[in-house]
């Protein structure tokens, strides 16, 4: 066999591998779209998205996901409010302030956090966090959006910390030196030079962290109470889009309206994560073009 032939075969194999990934995504999206489309045709898009009640087993069945969307967004927003400041500050501490020994230990602990299965986090949250929140805030149940936010913050932290830390560390030393040489203090340098230069990477880290949170199912299902009503405060039980699919898929009739409604929820989730990833991509690209 001549070298040209081997070359072209390897090239085709690599091409095939690349194509397969795309094909899978397209197939998944197509499948979602197909089932969702049937549902939308039977039930109506607006009634679905803006409907406040989710009663799949009453007759006639009502499929309004608005409460679920609010539930998902509320839990995600809460998680972001906790995880983003904490994550960025941790990343700053690891890359700029910590002594070498502390830095290595911290970094491996953060990476270990990413390896904890979500169900374990949910389980620990259920037996420790939920009773704590119930007694601490003196509310009837500890299964609230707030509990979900805390558990999910733990899941988003490792992503946010490790990607932000990479971005902060890749700020050229010469930038910092230039700032110091102009008489800037360490804090001024971090705030006005380091954070500014690392900002696209940090934003991408936040987006990826949030993307992970919004798609999370089991952990959040275990601690949020699973009540499909529009919450009035963060101390109300909520149900998320993902939790709904996970709990109800087993009870549906294949091809039925309920079954297809769950696919429509999948479509909503897919759109949300797609938007988040798209925004993250924009920032990542902006970052790499600059360097």
């Amino acid at each position, binding site marked *: 066999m001549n070298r040209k032939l081997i070359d072209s075969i390897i090239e085709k194999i690599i091409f095939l591998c690349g194509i397969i990934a795309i094909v899978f995504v397209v197939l998944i999206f197509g499948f979602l779209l197909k089932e969702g489309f049937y549902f939308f045709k039977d039930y109506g898009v607006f009634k679905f998205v803006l409907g406040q009640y989710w009663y799949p087993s009453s007759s006639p069945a009502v499929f309004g996901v608005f409460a679920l969307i609010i539930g998902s967004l509320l839990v995600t927003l809460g998680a972001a409010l906790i995880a983003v400041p904490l994550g960025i500050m941790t990343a700053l501490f690891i890359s700029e302030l910590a002594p070498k020994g502390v830095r290595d230990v911290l970094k491996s602990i953060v990476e270990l956090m990413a390896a904890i299965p979500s169900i374990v986090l949910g389980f620990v949250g259920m037996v420790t966090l939920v009773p704590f929140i119930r007694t601490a805030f003196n509310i009837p149940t500890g299964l609230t959006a707030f509990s979900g936010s805390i558990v999910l913050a733990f899941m988003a932290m490792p992503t946010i910390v490790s990607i932000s830390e990479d971005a902060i560390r890749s700020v*050229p030393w*010469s*930038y910092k*030196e*230039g*700032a*110091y*040489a*102009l*008489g*800037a*203090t360490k804090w*001024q340098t971090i705030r*006005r*030079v380091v954070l500014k*230069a690392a900002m696209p990477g940090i934003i991408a880290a936040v987006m990826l962290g949030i993307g992970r949170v919004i798609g999370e199912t089991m952990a959040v299902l275990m601690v949020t109470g699973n009540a499909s009503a529009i919450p009035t405060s963060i101390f109300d039980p909520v149900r998320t889009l993902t939790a709904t699919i996970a709990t109800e898929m087993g009870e549906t009739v294949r091809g039925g309206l309920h079954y297809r409604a769950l696919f429509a929820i999948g479509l909503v989730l897919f759109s949300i994560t797609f938007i988040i990833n798209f925004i993250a991509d924009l920032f990542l690209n902006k970052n790499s073009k*600059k360097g």
Partner: protein
Amino acid sequence: MVTKENDKITVENLNCFYSGKQVLKNLNLTVEKNEILSIIGPSNSGKTSFLRTLNRMNDMNVNFSREGNIYLDKENIFDMNPEKLRTRVGMLFAMPIPLPMSIYDNIAYAPRVLGLKNRKNMDEVVEQSLKDAYLWDEVKDRLNASAIKMSGGQQQRLCIARILAIEPEVILFDEPCSGLDPISTAKVEEAMLKLKQKYTIVLVTNNVKQASRVGTRTAFFLMGELVEVDTTKKIFVSPQNKKTEDYITGRFG
């Protein structure tokens, strides 16, 4: 300490070490007001270490240690707040580092960060700094253009202007022309000669000819020791030390 009226910086018995290895040996040297003191010498002669000690940039290196003292206007710099010191003793690096923002913002950056100027006279500060750095005529019509797109020589003069905006007393130049072509180099040198009317300048250079062109006085460093310091004319015409003569005539180094 014996300082004369005209001395800006007095270095007294300075010894510097990196991880215990001595890089500067028992250095005694003065920098006079409004002069350009050129420091020449081969690599590893301690020129840059010396320069970075003058504004305490070495403080950030944990392996660095020193003995001896440096006085700026009779005040020991090691008793001063390092950030305050660096606003009085500015530093220019070999590689120009324009920040990824507009020309105007690059100049206004340090005064803003340090809270030195209010917004009203920022325009004047930017204009004056750019004029003093011999850059105003080339960029006055595009102050809002990105600084990254400037040529290397312009970037270096931009960095000079950026330092001038905080109005230091001393400017340290660390091989400022090492990456520049002869025409850009000439412009930076022209700026330096103009600047010495207002500022005191210490110039580290690998380019012996540059020292002869701009230096009021010239010091020759070798292996961490000060071999000789005198007026530039004397160093280049009749050096006292054989090693100095060998170096400037290009016999070694």
